[in-house]
């Protein structure tokens, strides 16, 4: 009796181990939520951002969504493919939310991007200053040109 008992115990133990392994693999596969690299709260002064994420596994197809609400209402898929980064530009002032998933699995934690462009007053002041420097440089060179080619 001992032997069958031991066999049964061993089989149960082996079966349990296999089941645990399979279920843990399933758990891993189900939980393979991709994660963004770096901070989850980003700020941009020029309306562009580069988002990067960790590789989860081979042959993974990632989907990246963008929304202007944290609940991802009217979310738009802006990338679907195997790459591990994307570059987004031309965004107006506002708060944008991004989330990521792999092979139609669970979504990642959302990443928040706040876009606040430089003030137009600062930009125009600096551009005006640049124009003055440039025109004076042109004047200096053109005034000296007859001397230069003589």
């Amino acid at each position, binding site marked *: 009796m001992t032997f069958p008992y031991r066999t049964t115990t061993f089989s149960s133990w082996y079966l349990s181990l296999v089941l645990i392994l399979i279920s843990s693999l399933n758990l891993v596969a189900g939980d393979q939520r991709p994660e963004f690299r770096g901070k989850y709260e980003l700020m941009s*002064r*020029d*309306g*562009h951002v*580069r988002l*990067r994420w960790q590789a989860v596994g081979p042959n993974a197809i990632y989907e990246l969504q963008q929304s202007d609400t944290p609940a991802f209402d009217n979310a738009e898929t802006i*990338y679907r*493919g*195997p*790459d*591990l*980064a*994307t*570059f987004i*530009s*031309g*965004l*107006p002032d506002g708060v944008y939310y991004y989330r990521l998933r792999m092979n139609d699995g669970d979504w990642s934690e959302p990443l928040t991007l706040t876009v606040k*462009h*430089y*003030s*137009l007053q*600062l*930009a*125009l002041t*600096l*551009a005006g*200053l*640049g*124009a*003055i*420097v*440039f025109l*004076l*440089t*042109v004047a*200096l*060179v*053109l*005034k*000296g*040109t007859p*001397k*230069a*080619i*003589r």
Partner: protein
Amino acid sequence: MEHQSYIISPEHGWIIIAGLSVLWIGLGYYWGRRAKSMDGYMLAGRRVGLALGTATVMATWVTSNTTMLAPQFALELGIWGMIAYSTAALGLLLFAPLAARIRRLMPRGYTSGDFIRLRYGKPAWVLFLLISIFYGFIWLISMGMAGGILMNAIAGIPYEIGMSVILFVCVAYTLFGGLYAVIGTDYVQSVLILIGIVIIGVAVFQLVDFGTVYADLSTDKPMLLNALLPASIMAVFNNLLFGVGEVFHSNVWWSRVFAMSQKAGRRAYLIGGLIWLPVPVAAGFIALSSGSIGINITRPDMVGPLVAANVLGQAGAIVVFMVFFCSLASSLDSLLASTSDLITQDIYKKMIKPQASEAQLRKASSRIVLGLGFVAWIVCLPRIGTLADVLFFAGPLVASTIWPIATGLFWRKANARGAIAGMIAGSVTGLVFYFVVGWYSASLIGAATSMIVVVLFTYLFPGTFEWHKLDEKTAASNA
């Protein structure tokens, strides 16, 4: 590697690299046999004509920064970004009269450092060398990085290997042939670049509809079409003044002036600038069409190569690969040669060994080329950031040299105190703006501060410089 979808196979990539590498090293060795003297090695015998002169000016300015950074500008800053990058042509156009003036005042000059030393004295010269060598090195690093990034993104060749190969090839042929090899290969490279750009341009304009691009941008990237995008408004004059500063101070451009005749130099810079002007606009349009074509951009500095290669398909990608390889090589070789000249002439000969023979100078020059290549390789190994981050850090430094150089060439009253104060004040204020506001304003502030300081010092402490002092050899033989 963030980009998982390559355009050509690594095998094709290696075949192109091997073919072009053998061609450049072979041509470098062949042309380099003419370089018997130091004038030959450093300045191609001072007999470069208009055709070769224009080709080398154009090819050197079509760097990886034009083919990779100009599209990045368009993708980040929109329409104004494209225009901002093309303003760099004004640096070449404005340098044309300076080229004539330099050649007339310094018929036997060697480097831009020579001018600063003779015009403003030793302290200004040392400061200028620090700025110029730092800038040259930063440019060199950005090129090495660009080579690695490009080969990785298009052919899947590991970054470290691609970067090492392009640095090795350029060091090898510059070492063999000096400026003869650089200008000769620049000519072939400029022809290949122009043919490639025409092919890419025609293909993109045929495949991508303007209306679709505009509609897609309006929906997905509206700020790129906004004429009042603050960052891009700042970038226009910042980039313009950065470009002017780069050309006015860098020995890359001064060595070509000394290598060409007075008339050829002025015309070469004018024609080269005009040919170069539309290139960033075309490259920028390619970037703006990336969304309509449906290409994922993983790094902004890779948008140009990725879009062009995708639009053209496998065969076209080979053309793209060649164009980018040529644009990288034509700038890397120029930088290696001119920075080596600057260190050989201004540091080794003037500071360390004034009695050095031609053979010793040639040996020192070769070692400096090797050393520059090696140090650039070490610094390039870790990918520091995007090309813009790397390059624009040097912006305020070079922009601060515009007025010391321009006034030094045309105003007798310009003086050393003004030049030194202008370069220091311009660099410091520009770097402060680099960190506080961003690179969009750094060169602009550097140039503006330097201009105010130089003008103020010229007014307060007017000098009385005698122009003949710039012709060092004549002055020495008369004495």
